């Protein structure tokens, strides 16, 4: 894929806008309420591991929670009471579930490109729910997912919002145009490999630059 000059500068602007965003975290109250909710979630995740397969996506999360606006900060004791969670909250839950399954996982921040009519819909939905819509920039959307280490430096990316593995080859509508795998708190690796792409951790990279030959 070759990005048009206009698209490239738009993505650069989007990266600048979201560069300092940290992956979402769900917080604990200093009381039993959040401890109980968290332990309950861990046990739920183990229960859904019916066949012991480590690298199976935790589909059950999206069967329980719809995708929609979340108000932040979010606490563990609030999660179960909510019907909808945004991609950041779903990403936290999915990473917790992957850990229970025995997988090594990291947050991954993405920028995805849709159509303007889509992002207008989302903006309306978030703002009418008195939630921030600053994750939208024109037809680009900030998104969170889970990078799961498969073997050595090879990763796969689980999208907890769509409840599927993202294809590194996917281009066009909904495609990832930039991403950042957050491995800040772990031993830094030289590069990660996602499909045919090499990815430097903790760095925002444009997928076209990584994916195409010069």
């Amino acid at each position, binding site marked *: 894929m070759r990005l048009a000059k206009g698209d490239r500068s738009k993505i650069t602007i989007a990266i600048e806008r979201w560069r300092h965003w940290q992956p979402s975290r769900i917080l604990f109250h200093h009381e039993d309420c959040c401890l109980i909710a968290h*332990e*309950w979630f861990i*046990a739920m995740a183990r*229960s859904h591991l*019916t*066949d*012991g397969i480590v690298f199976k996506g935790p589909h059950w999360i999206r069967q329980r929670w719809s995708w929609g606006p979340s108000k932040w900060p979010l606490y563990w004791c609030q999660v179960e009471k909510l019907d909808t969670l945004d991609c950041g909250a779903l990403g936290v839950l999915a990473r917790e579930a992957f850990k229970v399954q025995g997988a090594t996982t990291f947050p991954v921040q993405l920028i995805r490109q849709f159509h303007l009519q889509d992002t207008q819909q989302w903006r309306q939905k978030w703002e009418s729910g008195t939630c921030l819509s600053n994750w939208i920039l024109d037809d680009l959307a900030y998104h969170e997912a889970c990078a799961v280490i498969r073997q050595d430096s090879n990763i796969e990316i689980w999208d907890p919002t769509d409840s599927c593995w993202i294809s590194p080859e996917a281009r066009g509508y909904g495609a990832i145009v930039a991403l950042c795998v957050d491995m800040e708190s772990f031993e830094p690796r030289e590069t990660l490999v996602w499909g045919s792409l090499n990815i430097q951790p903790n760095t925002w990279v444009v997928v076209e630059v990584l994916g195409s030959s010069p």
Partner: protein
Amino acid sequence: MTQRKYPLTIYISGLYSGPNPSPGIGIARSLRCAYPDAILIGVDYSNRSHGIHWPDFNEIWLQRPWNELDLDLYASQIKEVLDAGAFWISGLDLETIWLAHKFPTHSNLLGPSVDALRRIAKPTIPAHKALPLRVPHYLYLTLPDWELYAFCRKYGWRVWLKGPYYEAYRVRNWTELNFARSQLSNTWSTDKLFVQAHIVGYEESIAFCAYRGHLLDCVYMTKRDITPEGKTWAGRISNVPKEILDPLQKVVKELNWTGGAELEMIRDANGMLWLIEWNPRFPAWIYGATIAGHNLPALLIERASGMPARKNLEANKEFTRVVIEIPARPQFPLPPLSEPVADSFGSSLKHPSGMPLLAARLQKHKGEVLGAHLDELHEIGEISAPSIPHLILEELKSYDFTQVETPLPIFLKAVAETSFKQTAEILRANSSGVQVAVAYSVKTNPDARFLELAHKHDFLAEIISQFELRKALSIGFDPAQIVLNGPGKWWPSISNRGLQFHALFCDSLEELRWLIPQLDKGICGARFVGVRLRPPQFQSRFGVPVGDLGTFRDLVSLVKRIPPDCSFGVHFHIPSSVVGVEEWFQLYESILVWARAIETTSGVKVRCVDVGGGWFPDDWFGVLLPRLSGLIDKALGNLHSLEHLILEPGKALTQSAVALLTRVLEVRRSGSNIEEVVVDGSIAELPTVQDYPHRILWLSSEGGWEVLKRGKGLLLGRLCMENDILASTVDFPNRIQPGDILVICDAGAYDRSMSYAFGQG
């Protein structure tokens, strides 16, 4: 390459174009791209194969159905067109086999040889061994039902029943397996079926074309969308990875493959590829590969004919199907829908190209070379009888059956004693810090002889009502050896106040809320008090549904209120014979995590775990008890204060220890075949006879016992009830006659405790 002097003519068979299509249309579309002037002749065997109307075909060669065709005449007609220079690409597996046999050396038949077909036959697919692919575990249905049932339990009833040609049924229990067996056997005129483990994963395929052992091209297809039947609807084409391509080239060479082929695979979550089928023809999605720039049918024709194909460029790596309407050919008017019968709609044919009819034809030619070829292709051996433990046969010998009234359940004392003793010995060998006990489930079989054995071996007694409590106490169990479970454990009323039980597991929050003050008042007591957990991933009516956070919170707060002189415990009970043995172990681990969550959040230590149940005898002795130390390690890994593990064997100790003695009332024959045998036993004495296989013995007039194998006969009960069928696939000995004794084994568990009086006035 040289230009042929006559028009390029290609016969393409297999034109069905419904939700489970044949490849004929895709082959024709691909060839039309490459050879705009070629004469494409579509071949099929029914005017309900709607692909006959596809406009890329210059002509349609519609044949009579396979059951009407004179195969020799048809073969000579095909030979004529092949001799005239036309090519034939088959899109039908069975037709491919038949043609390979009929025309083993004809260069214009673009299909694999008999030898190559032999090496891709299901389920072994011998050719796969050179490829980095595995074949899912399977078992032939010639093996005894007993072993098939064990296979299904092992794979948690994630299994398929398959025939040697087409079709597969997902079966989830023994009843479904028997139904599917009958359906497949009737449709494909063969008993050569097998059961195969289901692989969870993404479906992927490789399609290739080859000519005389030379791989011309191949593509990898990842399914992007599938029909409810699992057939490709959309996909993505990519190159075949080198680690598969290199060995594939070698295998194609070894097989001297000619024609198209498809390897249907599943990629599991660990990335392992499992080969499900190796089809001897192009796949129905082959035009999707052409869209991606790989026109495999054209490459095949180009190589075989020497006529250069027009190259097509890659339009897109991804393809999808759409539903379109096309004009029907006037010379083939559409037949009317079959007349609706009873309360159903008229329906289309499931197999319009008539493959079941061809299968029936080929199977009938047993004495001919083709029949022998099919046998060899799917060689699976003779049907074998289940083995009967020596102890059972020995014990049966001790009875004089001439005078006994039937039907009669026989308690096999030595079998029972051995089961209890073996279990007790294994438990005694446990040297871990956790005390392990077995709780005999009284409901499984309340026969005093079993209870006495349980008592003798220091087992606990698990009771679900006050009646069962009284029974256990009457046998000599101390209240401190009693485990109370189930929703009706206090029914009809508390018999003795102040008893101190071993363990008491509440079935609901309501019961726990009620129980706590009773404990405080000393109305009853127990060393361990706890709850049965209902894990969220299984449907169950029992236990506390901890998948609801509010319920979990309430449980935590109630657990804190349990009197400190009672230790806390958790219980779960899911039959391993229903969910599968490995799934049961996963469930066990998940229950430990729930127990840990309760412990962490309540601050109350979990000191007892009670796990059940529903163990099939072979799994109890062959799987659970050998893994006991692992079970304890897992528990201690999660619950550091655990003191006590209670195992519930369920039916494991009793099932084999009772057999039902029956007498033959009538033998019904059709010619020399015995079709049905009626006995004086019935589903009233064997209420779970259709839930799992029961081994059957016949006492011959010479006094010897013969184990009955699987066959076509029905074993019918005495009741005037349609469902009183004790076994639906029995091979009766020809000498069987009224008055003979048949013993139906494995009737010692719920067959006994749930039996009822019926039709006895």
